[in-house]
């Protein structure tokens, strides 16, 4: 028994794996994308702050910076063709202490050195004019006009759907269990059967070190998961912030951000907590309470607003700060490790970089997916004719949108996957109003069902 021979097998269908699959499929390679979970975006890509960064604070002269800049440029160039949102709201970096204020000039110089030349220093009065709800305790800051808000899941799904339109295959519940290198190709053992491919790309995120060890036989780096918790405030709070509000970063973290989402909420996070577990990101009530307080220190009016949801993500950090990208083309292997918080911004740039490593000239896409409009500043499906009825009343998700997600090029295989594709159950009621309808509509359609079978009720 043997699978077809692929040019390239990508391990891990997170944002990075999806972007790489897109690049190589557009460029004419036979691509297979392997994901161990029931659905894509189930690891590090499931929770982040949904910001498209400029790289203004990235380490100068690094591959990470190059990938962020290239990735951002490509997103800006293609997002409209795929109906992906962009809220070009800009960011304010805010200093709250004397020390932070003293650090601002160096940060602005770094931004300019990184090619982000449109940063603009703002004094306290200018900050309060730009952001009227900001606490008057702010001391000084600067504006980064290019920072923007995007939809982290629709972007990744769009890359994946475009890859599939160009012939890529996705296989879920396909965990890599072994690998053998032959003269010109790999034999990969997976929980979904054997795969043969010329080139293997390790984009396994939180499991990148494990996969690297399977492919190279060596423990070349360690994933040290860094948890980030977030709280999400209900829609009325979104009017409190115009910009992305960033703190002065420290050596280890960008710090706690306050920003709107393209879905019309307001989020506060993330924390940065090292932990050994790479699968479980637990919410800690005391931490969430502190995040809520942090939010209210930055925007005092936030104190009266309701928290709708909380989530936690894991960043696949390593023992070093930078990206761990290396290629051994003679052995048909590329490792893309240590892609931390900047992965969403950098994914398209990383994919482009891999293409260059392989000597491929980027081709123009022949197919463009038309992503469902989920952001709040466009006409949503519920506002158009024939949507079949609203199922999720908090997030206004229609029956037609759910059916579309269940029949997409890579259909939702779990409630989590359906959430990321449609936003069902993400609102204030957390499923009180729609979970029963969803259990009915998805019956027999998920590989990970919402229920454990039929009952004999009543």
């Amino acid at each position, binding site marked *: 028994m043997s699978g077809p021979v692929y040019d390239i097998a990508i391990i891990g269908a997170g944002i990075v794996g999806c972007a790489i699959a897109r690049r190589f499929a557009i460029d004419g390679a036979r691509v297979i994308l392997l994901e161990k979970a029931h659905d894509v975006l189930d690891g590090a890509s499931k929770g982040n702050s949904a910001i498209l960064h400029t790289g203004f604070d990235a380490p100068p002269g690094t591959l990470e910076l190059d990938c962020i800049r290239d990735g951002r440029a490509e997103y800006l160039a293609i997002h409209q063709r795929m109906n992906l949102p962009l809220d070009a709201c800009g960011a304010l970096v805010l200093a709250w202490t004397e020390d932070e204020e003293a650090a601002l000039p160096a940060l602005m110089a770094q931004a300019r050195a990184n090619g982000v030349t449109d940063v603009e220093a703002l004094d306290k009065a200018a900050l309060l004019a730009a952001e009227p709800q900001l606490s008057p305790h702010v001391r000084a800051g600067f504006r980064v006009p290019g920072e923007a808000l995007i939809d982290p899941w629709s972007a990744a799904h769009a890359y994946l759907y475009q890859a599939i339109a160009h012939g890529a295959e996705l296989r879920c519940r396909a965990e890599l269990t072994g690998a053998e290198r032959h003269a010109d190709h790999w034999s990969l053992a997976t929980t979904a059967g054997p795969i043969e491919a010329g080139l293997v790309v390790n984009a396994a995120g939180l499991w990148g070190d494990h996969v690297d060890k399977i492919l190279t036989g060596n423990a070349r780096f360690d994933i040290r998961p860094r948890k980030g918790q977030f709280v999400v405030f209900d829609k009325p709070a979104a009017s409190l912030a115009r910009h992305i509000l960033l703190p002065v970063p420290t050596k280890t973290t960008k710090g706690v951000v306050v920003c709107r989402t393209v879905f019309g909420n307001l989020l506060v996070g993330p924390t940065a907590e090292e932990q050994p577990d790479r699968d479980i990101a637990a919410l800690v009530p005391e931490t969430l309470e502190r995040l809520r307080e942090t939010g209210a220190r930055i925007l005092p009016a936030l104190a009266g607003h309701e928290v709708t949801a909380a989530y936690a993500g894991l960043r696949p950090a390593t023992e070093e700060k930078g990206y761990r990208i290396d290629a051994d083309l003679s052995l048909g292997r590329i490792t893309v490790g240590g892609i931390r918080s900047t992965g969403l911004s950098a994914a398209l740039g990383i994919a482009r970089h891999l293409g260059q490593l392989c000597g491929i000239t980027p081709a123009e896409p022949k197919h463009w997916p038309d992503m469902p409009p989920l952001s709040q500043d466009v006409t949503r499906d519920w506002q158009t004719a024939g949507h079949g009825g609203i199922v999720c009343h908090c997030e206004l998700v229609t029956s037609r949108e759910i059916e579309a997600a269940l029949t997409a090029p890579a259909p939702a295989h779990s409630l989590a996957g359906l959430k990321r594709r449609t936003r069902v159950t993400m609102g204030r009621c957390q499923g009180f109003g729609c979970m029963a309808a969803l259990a009915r509509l998805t019956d027999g359609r998920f590989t990970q069902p919402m229920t454990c079978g039929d*009952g004999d009720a*009543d």
Partner: protein
Amino acid sequence: MQTDVAIIGAGPAGLAAAAELGRLGAGRVVVIERDAVPGGIPRHCGHSPFGMREFRRIMGGSAYAARLAHEARAAGAEILCSMSATALFDGPLLELSGPEGRFMLDARCVLLATGTRESSRIQRMIGGTKPGGVMPTGALQGIVHLNHQIPFRRPVILGTELVSFSALLTCRQAGARPAAMIEAGPAILARAPAALLPRVMGVPVHLDTRIAAIHGRDRVAGVTLDTPRGMTDLDCDGVVLTGAFRSEAALLAAAGAPRDAGTSGPVIDSFGRCFAPGYFAAGNLLRPVETAGACWAEGKRAARAIHAFLGGALPDPASAHPVQIASDAIRYALPQLLLAPGPGSHDQLQLRVSRPVRGMLQLRQGETILASRHINARPERRVMLPLPAHALNGPLILTIEDST
């Protein structure tokens, strides 16, 4: 599209109002219901006794819901199902969205009867992971009673309100065996006979206990309980978050309407008026949470006020006097704004206390005591104070002369 009265929500309050408005000859009455079938929460309550007050007989939830809808339709009301109200505007004007798309409904008057929902996990600040199998009773009962599906085999049930025991029975009907009931307080909140159910069903009840964390990646694998004897882990495959009801007031919040922090619902006057001219509210939207029968009675009452409003017979809302609560033992009091009695006005102040309290409840205007009664109240019981039948003038103060 135009109507005389638009009612948002086809639960007991909305349907009772629709039926009464039909009987009163209030013109065209349209009920907007987001679910596919009218009836509201009672529809998926398979077992509680409904209907004694309304129809003089004991009925199951779904039969009761069907009867309410039948009465409304028989009185001439139209019920639009699978239809969501998505925004409220001055006018009154409603933005609606149904299977065919979005449209506007111009109404002379609107009754908001959107009811209540249970608090979500984040509102209860439960830590841990976010696996599948964590749900409120509302979702559980829909899955079991409407879909005939089983969401889990061995859940824990958080809460000991009446609805918590309803969740317990629903689990049993689905063939699931709850591992435990969890109550943060020192005693079961619901009264007998419901409170006897766990013993009958062999389900342990943990008092003075919180769920500190939920475990499991994709499905619930267990919970950590914070008990008086310390932290302990319990195996289970689901968590039912029962009760801790709050008003389903999202439409009002989005419209910027004044809300009462104590009730989580709208601020209303004696006639149930709220938000903007022509808007009324009734039922569990007003406060969490009373019985279907109490909501039904409020709906009927609101219908009489609406009928009077359409005839130009209600007093100027600007003449209302706010009730100032001057006791920290009083969580809320409804209506928040009082006027002299009239058609369809609330004739009693309804309130809840925040802690067990005994004493003399008084509504005062200056030095004059307008209404008073001795109470021995607990947080889980409603307290009613009959309102005076005469005109009011000047600020109103509600206190409890504590005797505990």
